[in-house]
Structure formats: structure tokens, C-alpha cells
């Protein structure tokens, strides 16, 4: 009598085993491709740098130590690694500013597209995605042409008689910011558009009808309803901004480093792979912490408004 139940139990076990077997290749790839390199980076960060790059298999915490502190080469005194910390600070600052600016420019853009008649919306979305067709490096060099001393902006300003000598715009934090906003703006517009497209514009009319001014309608009705799109767009812009490499290296001219450049420096000229690895992991932790804080904050805000 129990044999039947046993049979079922065995059947189910086999079923579960088969499922695991079937998903094994995918799991292996995920394990090797995603966690493998991360693990390598984590291990490297605890080794000793080799003389010509690479690592020597000897445990050391110097890599991690040097992320935050530095020892004076003459008197051995300990101090904060000001250079690294300022780069951390600049990276976070520029990424936050990029996200905010992308939101400021992306919001009206997405609103404009979602209020077009449905037939022309596709055309506008197509226009927004055109920059994606070109290599990032080329787009960044195009921005360099616009910003440099003999570039578009300065030439126009001089020709118009507004300034007499070119303004130094290139190789500043401002140039990096302009470049990053330009590069990442579509990543903000697309998710914003996706949530605005679903917005019922009769709710906007209802707001006007109930004595809300245009600004109040924006604040009390449109923004709360498109918040998911704002969150998604901000995440999509913030993460690549924080790790940006090409834009700061071209428009910042090697002086105004961001985290991506600092990491590259350690693996290249710096010949300090453990330090580079440690910075990489620090970057990842910053991103994850920022994301967690942001999502939790936004999520609870959304919940509250639904309560």
C-alpha cells in the first residue's frame, strides 16, 4: 500500500533532479561568468603586486590599506589617501549630478513624447535612440570637438562678440558632466517614457478641475504616478556614471580622474593589481549601498502613498 506513495515520492525526486540537471549548464555559465571574475578580483585584492604588473601569490592587505590610507615615503607617517578619496568623492558627486541633470532634461523630453499622437511617438523614440547607434568613443570625441577652445561653443561665442578669448571648458569636471549627461540621457528618457505612456491624462484634467495649478498637478499627480520610471531611469544612469571610463578620460584629459580611470591606472601604469582590485570592489559596494538605500526609500514612499 505504501509502495504507491513511495513511487510518487521517487517520481518527484527524479523530477527535481532532472530540473537541476537541465538548468545546470545555465547555472554553470552564470557561476563562471558572473561570480568567477568577481572572485578573482576579490582574491587579487589580498595578494602582493608583482614588479611588472600581475600578482605574486603572497597574502597582503596593502591593496585594501592603500585604497584609504597612504604612508609617507620619507618619514613613514600615516595619512588618508587624499588623491583616492577625492576621486571617490568626485565620482559620486559627478554621478549624482549626472543623474539629476538627466532627470531634469529627460522628464520634459519623455513628457513631450508621451503627449504626441501615437503615430508620431515612435518617430520621436527613434530619434532618441539614434546616439546608441554610434560608438561611445566617437560620441565622446564629438563632444570634445564641441567643447574645446577652438570648438563650436567658443567659436560661436567669440563670433557673437560675447567673449573675446575662449573659455577653458575642456578637461574640467563640467566637461565630464556635460559628456556624461549627453551619453546617458536616453537611458533616462526610455524608462520615463514607458511609465508616462501609461499615465492616464484624464487624471491630469481631473487635477486641473479640482483647482490644482499646473505646478501642483506636476507635483501631486504626475510625479507620484511616474515615479517607477524615475527610479528605473535614475538607476540606469547612476550605475554606469559611477564606473564611467571613456568620458572622463577623453573630456577630463587625464587630470580629472573618476573611479574607472583610477582602476585602469592601477592595472596599467601603476602596476598595482591588488590596489586596482580593491578599488573595484569598493566601487561595487558603493553602487550596491546606493541602490539599496534608493530603492528602499522610494519603495516605502510609494507604499505610503498607496496606504
Amino acid at each position, binding site marked *: 500500500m505504501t509502495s504507491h506513495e513511495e513511487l510518487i515520492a521517487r517520481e518527484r525526486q527524479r523530477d527535481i533532479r532532472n530540473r537541476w540537471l537541465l538548468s545546470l549548464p545555465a547555472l554553470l555559465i552564470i557561476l563562471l561568468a558572473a561570480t568567477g571574475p568577481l572572485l578573482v578580483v576579490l582574491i587579487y585584492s589580498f595578494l602582493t603586486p608583482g614588479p611588472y604588473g600581475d600578482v605574486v601569490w603572497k597574502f597582503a592587505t596593502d591593496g585594501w590599506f592603500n585604497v584609504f590610507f597612504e604612508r609617507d615615503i620619507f618619514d613613514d607617517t600615516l595619512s588618508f589617501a587624499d588623491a583616492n578619496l577625492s576621486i571617490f568623492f568626485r565620482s559620486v558627486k559627478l554621478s549624482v549630478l549626472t543623474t539629476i541633470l538627466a532627470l531634469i532634461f529627460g522628464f520634459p523630453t519623455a513628457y513631450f513624447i508621451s503627449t504626441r499622437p501615437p503615430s508620431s511617438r515612435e518617430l520621436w523614440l527613434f530619434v532618441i535612440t539614434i546616439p546608441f547607434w554610434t560608438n561611445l568613443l566617437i560620441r565622446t570625441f564629438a563632444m570634445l570637438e564641441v567643447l574645446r577652445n577652438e570648438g563650436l561653443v567658443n567659436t560661436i561665442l567669440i563670433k557673437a562678440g560675447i567673449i573675446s578669448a575662449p573659455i577653458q571648458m575642456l578637461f574640467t569636471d563640467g566637461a565630464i558632466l556635460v559628456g556624461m549627461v549627453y551619453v546617458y540621457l536616453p537611458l533616462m528618457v526610455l524608462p520615463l517614457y514607458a511609465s508616462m505612456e501609461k499615465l*492616464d491624462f484624464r487624471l491630469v*484634467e481631473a487635477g486641473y*478641475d*479640482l483647482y490644482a495649478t*499646473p505646478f501642483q498637478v506636476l507635483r501631486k499627480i504626475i510625479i507620484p504616478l511616474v515615479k517607477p520610471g524615475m527610479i528605473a531611469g535614475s538607476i540606469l544612469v547612476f550605475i554606469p556614471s559611477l564606473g564611467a571610463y571613456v568620458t572622463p578620460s577623453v573630456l577630463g584629459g587625464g587630470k580629472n580622474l573618476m573611479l574607472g580611470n583610477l582602476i585602469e591606472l592601477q592595472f596599467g601604469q601603476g602596476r598595482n593589481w591588488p590596489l586596482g582590485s580593491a578599488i573595484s570592489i569598493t566601487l561595487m559596494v558603493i553602487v550596491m549601498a546606493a541602490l539599496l538605500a534608493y530603492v528602499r526609500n522610494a519603495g516605502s514612499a510609494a507604499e505610503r502613498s498607496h496606504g
Partner: protein
Amino acid sequence: MADLSAIEIRGVTKYYGYGESRIAAVHGANLSIRQNEFFTLLGPSGCGKTTLLRLIAGFEFPQEGELLLYGDNIAEMPPFRRPVNTVFQNYALFPHMSVADNIGFGLKMLGKSKDDVAARVGLMLKLVKMEQFAKRATSQLSGGQQQRVALARALAPAPKVLLLDEPLSALDYKLRKEMQIELKRLQAETGITFVFVTHDQEEALTMSDRVAVMSSGNILQVGSPRDIYDRPADRFVADFIGETNFLKGRLASLDGGSASIALNCGVSLTAPAPAGASMGDEVTVMIRPEHARLVAGNSESPILTGPLNDIIYFGTDTYFNIRLSDGTLFTVRQQNRPGEEGSYAQGDQVGATFPANAIRVLRG
């Protein structure tokens, strides 16, 4: 000031589109809506009734004409400054706010204090019998409940005029009947002028103090439900409201206000002449099916005779379609009584009679 209209519409025209292809959604509309009136804009879809309502609400602006609210021209005023509120067709409740927050929204925007808002919201919830739903999300409400919240939200700021854009069309039949009574009660209790848009003539006739019938951007007739039904101004109104028999004919003779009409089916009728008609004019005679009575073909000297084309049983009533000699069908609607089943059969030679005052003559 007592006879000041709540809303006065003077020569209002609203075009959509540009140049050659522009269409007048509302064309030179003139209308005066009285204080505390339940006023209905009635017409088929696309007749401009919703556009007219949106012009009053301020979602659209007229290219021509004046729109007066208690004497002030509000034609150019943005919607958030107009002391009128709207109940939208699909309610348009704010999904990110609770029922109470929805109802309090207008008051909050008007800068009322927290206590005032809370007190008024409580009053409104009670008015629409939704007290126990204050904290609910609007997505947790049924269609009828959402409707009540939408009403409470629009009534909360005590608007001078409440606009209702086909608010009952999304509800099922029974709920619609309930809400019709509810709306009348709310109007009586609040004393606010209601402007109601519908394409449902039954709704318009049962609820309204006065009705304006619209067609392709024009207001054809304004009057009490009785006026509109019994004394339609033209053929469109007669056709749109209720069921009507139209019989074509010519004005054979005129004697003062009375005219003799030779119908195409060979019968002559005497009826009050339409204003401005002259001898020989083409006219249309209208007779409501329920004003006519069916009689056997050989009795009581029927006015119109012919074979029964078909019989349609309707539960409360039966429709008898008589084929007249010129081929047109004349419908008689009779209430069903017990024991009458099978009195007439298709093909029977029958007649129809009607009192003289059931006849109305329209020009054209």
C-alpha cells in the same frame, strides 16, 4: 439678481482641426442654464455635447462666443480657476490616493485648513454613504463605489455648477437605475446646478428639469422632457427621442391654423398647421406608436388600414407593424393584458386609430 442664469452660453463656437479640414464641434451655441436646475445635454455620440461640457469645465477654449458663469465671462479662464467641478466618464480617481484623499484633493488645493478638509470629507463620505471606505485605495472599490467617490470628490469644494460627463455609462443596468435616483437626491440635497451629458434618452427624460437636444454641433431644441417628447421641434428630435411613425404627405388646404394633409398612403388628416407652411408644401406627420390603437380591419372606422406585417412581443408591450398602401410601416405599441395572446396574426387586415391631438405636423 434672482433670475440670473447659472450658465449663459452666447454664440459659442469650437472648431477642431485647421483650415479646410476644420470641423465645428460646437457651432454658435446659445444656451441659458438656470440656477439649481438639473440640465441635460442629450445627443448621439459626436454631436458636440461633451465638447460643450469641456468648454464649460475649461478643458477646451471656444474660438468664438461668450461663456458666462453667474454673469462673469469665463471663456478664457483656466480650469483650475473656475468654480465648477466635473464627474468624469471613467471617474478619473487618483490611483495613488485613498478615498478620503481623493475627496479632499480639491479642498486642499483651494488652501483649506487640515481640519476643514477633514470635516468636509467626512460630510461628503456621509452624503454618498461611503463612510466605512475612507481609508481604502480606489482600486479596491467596485464601479458603483468609485462612482460615488467621484461624485463626492466633485461636490466637496461646493462648486457653483457640477458637470457630469456620461457618468452612468460604465455601470450595469440595475446600478444605473439606482444611481439615477441617487443623483436626483444629491442634486436636491446640495442645491447645486447639475449639467449632465448623456446619449441615453431615457436617462435624460427621467432625470432632467430641462433637456437640450444636440446634433452635429447644433442645439436643436431646449425644453422640459415633456416638451421635447410631445412637441419636438423638428424631425431629428422626434426621431432621436422615443419611437415615432413618420408619414409623408402634402399640405392640401389651409384653414386658419388648421390644415388638411393628404398622406402618400391615400388618407387625409386634419391637424394644426406648422408655422410658416403654405399650400402644397411637403410635410411629415408624426404619431407616437403608443398614442395609436390597433383595431380590427372592419370595425370602428379606422384611420389607417393595412395588413399586419409583423408582431414583436416585448414583455410589457407588443409592437404591431401595419403595412400601409404606399409601403411604409406604421407601428402601434400596445400594452399587453392577460388573455389577449393570439388576438392578431401576421397578415391579418387591421386598422389603427389615434386621437386628433396625437398628430403633429412637421415641415419637410
